[in-house]
Structures are given as structure tokens and as C-alpha cells.
């Protein structure tokens, strides 16, 4: 039977480890804040062309970079698993009273909090510095950010569970993340894609996240308006959970 105390202990340990080397998570939050102003004019032109004549461009640039850098920071999640092997602590953990499920859940909790924190920081600074003013529901924005952060965390866990080495896992995380982020329109709006490429965007969870945040920012959308997007993002998350579980048992058996 799973123990909440042990899951908390694993999460506490991983959070402690992250706080000891905060440079990478900090950079993952700072760089999008620095880069966003460079993208705003181009994004404004795109949004105006889409019919949003009063758009500032921040409505696309801020959530776009928040999504893009969320995928970049998947490497931190992957490293949470592989670092333990490098430090020789993985077998110690496996031999402990904590079950593998408890160990993985403890790590997922920290990965989720890191993702959410990064997204919140990027969006908050977008509001403070770049004039990002979502005119829709803040609750809807929080729900989208939360579900998206959980989905990205599970993407990282799935990569860690399926890859045999750190190098492979980091490459897969980076390439998979960039592919999903760019395909989903986090760097440039999907409307600028060639017509044949636009339908492909729907296969990326980033598309649904950017679309939801854009609706909240530009179309005064509420929770009910973005429920389909939230559902699709959640569906991707569920897929990654299943992939993680299969990878987990596959790894346990080997």
C-alpha cells in the first residue's frame, strides 16, 4: 500500500536537490522573459492579420514562450531520474521501504511543481513587463497552466521510463519538446504555417495550450470556453501516464 509520508519524503528529497543547484531552473524562467519583447512586434502583426486589431502581440508571445520553455525544462525532470543512477543512489532508493511507485510519484510531484512555477513566473513577468493582459477568466488561465504543467511533467517521466541512458533521454526530451512546441505554434502562430502543416498542429499538446491561453487573452474566454482544450491537454497527459506506466514495468522487469 502506498504511503503518503514516503511519497512526501521522496518529493522533499528531490526538491532539496533542485534547490541546491537552482541555476538551470532560474535560467529556464529568465530567458523567456528576456526574449519575449523581441517577439512581440512580429506576433502583433500576425494577430492583427488574424483580426485582433487591438492585440499588442504579448497575447501570443508570452504564452508561446511559456509553453516553449516548459518543454525545454523537461530535461530537468529526466535528470531527476538519471542523476540517481550516476550518484549510485538509485539502488539504495530501490532497496528502501519506498516502492517504485512511491519514488516515481515523489519525483512527479516535484517535476509538476517546477513546471507550474516556471509557467507562473513567465506569465507573471509577461503581465508586469510586456503588457500581457488576459481579458478572460484568470481561473481558466490557472487551470490551463496547471493541466499543461502536469502534462509536461508526465512527458518527462515517460521519456525517463523509456530511455535506457541519460544521453538518449535528454536528446529525446529536447527534440520531442521542441517539435511539439514549434508544431503547436508556440514560436510563431499556427496561422503563419503553410496550409498543409496547419492540421498537424492539432497533434501537439502545445497547440491546445497556446490556443486556450490566446482565447483567454483575446476572446474573453472563461473556463467553459476552454474546456475542450483542457480536455485535450489532459488527454495527452493521460497518454504520457500510460506510456510511463508501461515503461516503468518494462524497466522494472529488466
Amino acid at each position, binding site marked *: 500500500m502506498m*504511503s503518503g509520508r*514516503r511519497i512526501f519524503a521522496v518529493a522533499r528529497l528531490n526538491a532539496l536537490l533542485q534547490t541546491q543547484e537552482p541555476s538551470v531552473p532560474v535560467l529556464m524562467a529568465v530567458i523567456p522573459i528576456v526574449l519575449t519583447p523581441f517577439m512581440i512586434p512580429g506576433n502583433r502583426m500576425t494577430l492583427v492579420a488574424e483580426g485582433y486589431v487591438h492585440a499588442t502581440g504579448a497575447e501570443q508571445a508570452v504564452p508561446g514562450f511559456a509553453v516553449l520553455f516548459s518543454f525545454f525544462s523537461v530535461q530537468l525532470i529526466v535528470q531527476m531520474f538519471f542523476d540517481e543512477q550516476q550518484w*549510485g*543512489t538509485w*539502488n*539504495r532508493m530501490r532497496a*528502501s*521501504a*519506498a516502492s517504485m511507485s512511491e519514488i516515481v510519484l515523489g519525483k512527479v510531484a516535484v517535476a509538476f511543481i517546477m513546471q507550474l512555477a516556471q509557467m507562473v513566473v513567465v506569465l507573471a513577468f509577461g503581465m508586469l513587463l510586456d503588457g500581457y493582459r488576459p481579458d478572460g477568466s484568470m481561473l481558466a488561465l490557472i487551470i490551463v497552466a496547471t493541466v499543461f504543467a502536469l502534462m509536461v511533467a508526465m512527458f518527462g517521466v515517460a521519456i525517463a521510463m523509456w530511455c535506457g541512458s541519460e544521453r538518449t533521454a535528454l536528446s529525446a526530451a529536447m527534440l520531442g519538446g521542441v517539435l511539439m512546441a514549434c508544431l503547436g505554434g508556440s514560436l510563431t502562430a499556427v496561422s503563419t504555417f503553410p496550409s498543409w502543416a496547419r492540421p498537424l498542429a492539432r497533434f501537439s499538446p502545445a497547440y491546445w495550450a497556446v490556443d486556450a491561453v490566446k482565447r483567454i487573452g483575446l476572446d474573453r474566454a472563461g473556463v467553459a470556453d476552454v474546456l475542450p482544450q483542457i480536455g485535450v491537454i489532459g488527454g495527452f497527459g493521460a497518454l504520457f501516464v500510460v506510456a510511463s506506466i508501461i515503461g516503468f514495468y518494462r524497466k522494472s522487469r529488466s
Partner: protein
Amino acid sequence: MIGRAAYVLDLHPGVYNANFVIVNNVNLYSETMASADDLAIQCSDVRKSYGSRCVLDGVNLQVRYGSILALLGRNGAGKSTLISMLCGLLNPDSGSVRVAGVALNGKRPNALGSAIGLAPQDLGLYPQLTVMQNLMSMAMVQGLRPRNARERAEDLIDMFDLGKQSGQRAESLSGGQKRRLHTAMALVHSPRVLFLDEPTVGADVEARSSILQVVRGIADSSTAVLYTTHYMEEIEQLGADVAFLDGGSIVDQGSIHDIIKRHAAPSICVSFVGGLQPEVIGWVRTGDGLEPDRPIDDPGRTLAALLSDQHCRDVQLKDVQVIHANLETAYRNIVRSGGGDSVAYIASGNPGYPERPEQSQALSGISGKENR
């Protein structure tokens, strides 16, 4: 029982102390009284192969609570594989394993984790955490509440003499300090069965002594310890029972005394002035000296017999070296006989007793380079 231990004392003057005699007697007593409940580790006909390579080929092993079993074998003999299996990290291909009363049948029950402590062969520390954080974090993962975890961590820091380093990051510790912390982390939850896989590799004299002292104390408090090492003197200091793993199975198991008695004998090497080696029945020439051609019981009596031989009366004695039977000699004989069968050892005509001193020294040197 007391006579048995006393005999060991005769063979190893200065190595054993009174404590060993008492502990050994307790072990010997429990050996005869052992029931399933007394057994911390029971493993029966355990087999494991990696592809076509058979690593464990029918291992049978029993360890009682309150005892230390030193598992010996060459590099690659399967010691670490066996430990991984006993900790539930690897599944055997066949056979049964029971640790701390928990049967491992392909699944690793949570109850096992709280009953066992593992210090793997390779260091396992969180480098960027302090000594205290490492210990506390592991204690909490083992299910201790924060306050208890802190108390236990403080106890272990005292026990392993890491007080001055408690606020220091693990990555900045010396090799010996890291090794002590590594071992301490296996003890945070006071396990009933402890697995220490070469815990003193790379440790300095001080760290090694500290680890051995703690291990002995832990066993005295009813914890079963399975200990692997390549240093025979550690086993003698711990007063451990010994099991030899060779060719994938346990080829012999017993107390140090029993193992030495079965696999090693004392010997002497006698040399004469001028290098003249007389022909004496029952002795063979070995380099500069003569050695008995069969195992002996009493070096003094054997030397007296040699010197009274008519061929030795006119030659002047230069040097006499008495070679004591010890665990290292027994180990080398077992390894050399390729399975430690004591019958084969006698019947082969191979005296099996120690090589000439210089050979012995050379072998120790090689072993030292590899393992220390």
C-alpha cells in the same frame, strides 16, 4: 565450544580477543538451535543467468539474526548479484529466497525495504547535500518522521565520527568519510538485516576501523549482517562466519576456525647456511629452503624432527619461517582447488598449505593492488 574457540586463539595469537570467544560461542550455540524464525536470510537452490552465462548455480545460504556472514569469492563470482537478489532488486531464475521473514517470489514487498539496509559496492550519496541532509532524507524515505529522522541521523553521525562534517556537502568529504556516510545511510532505519557490499573499499585505516566497529556492534544487537570483502583480516576482526562463493555456488561455509581447519594448515620453511639442501624424506626443496611435503599440525615438532634427521646434523641452520594457517591461505586454497572441496584438496596430493613466504607475499601484493 570454548575449546573450539580457544583453538582458534592458538592459531591466531593477537588477532582475537575475549569478545570474539563469547560472540563465537553465541553463534555456535544458535547454529545448533537455529529454527526458521532465527534465520534472517534463507536462500535455497537459487539460480541466475545472464544470457548463456550462469552466475549463480544453485546457491544455498542461511544467515541467523545476530551473526555476520562474510561472503567471499573472486571478482565476478556473483557476490553482488546474490546481494541484489536478496534485496529484491533482481529476480532469481529459480529457487526460493526469504529475507527477514519475507518471501521474495518475483515481487518485492514493501515490508522488505523497511527490514533491510543496503550499502552497495559503489558509493551512493547525494553529492550536493550535506551529511545531515543525506542521512535525514534517507531516514524519511524509510518512513521515519522528521524529528526521529534527525535524532537517528545525529546518532549515526556520532557513531561514525562525522560530527565535524555534518554540515559539509558529501561531495567535499574525503574518501574515507564518504565511505562512512555511505555505510551510515544503510542504517538510518535500524534494519534487521544489513547488506554491506565491500564497505571498506577505498577507506583509510581510521574509516575502516570505524566501520568494522559499528558493524560488530550492530550484529551484537541482533541484526544479521551479510558482508562481502576481499580483506581477510576484516573478517577475522569481525569474528564473522564465512561462506565461499565459487563457480556459482557456495562451496563451503562455516566459522573461521572450521574453514581454516578444512582448507589450510600451518607450515614451516627451513633454510641452511651455504644454500646446501640435504635430502630428507618427507621434505621438498623450495628455492632456498625445505618445506614439508604434506600438511603439518605442529610446526615446532616438525622442525625438531627435521633437525634430528641424520642428514641435517652437519649443516648449519640459517633461517626458519613459521607460516601460520589463516583465512587468506584457506581462501587461496579454495580458489586454487576450483571449488573448495576439502576431499579434492587432500586427495589431489597438493599440499594446499601456504606457498613459500616470498610467493605468499607476492600474491598478497597483487591482491592488495587490485583491491585496496
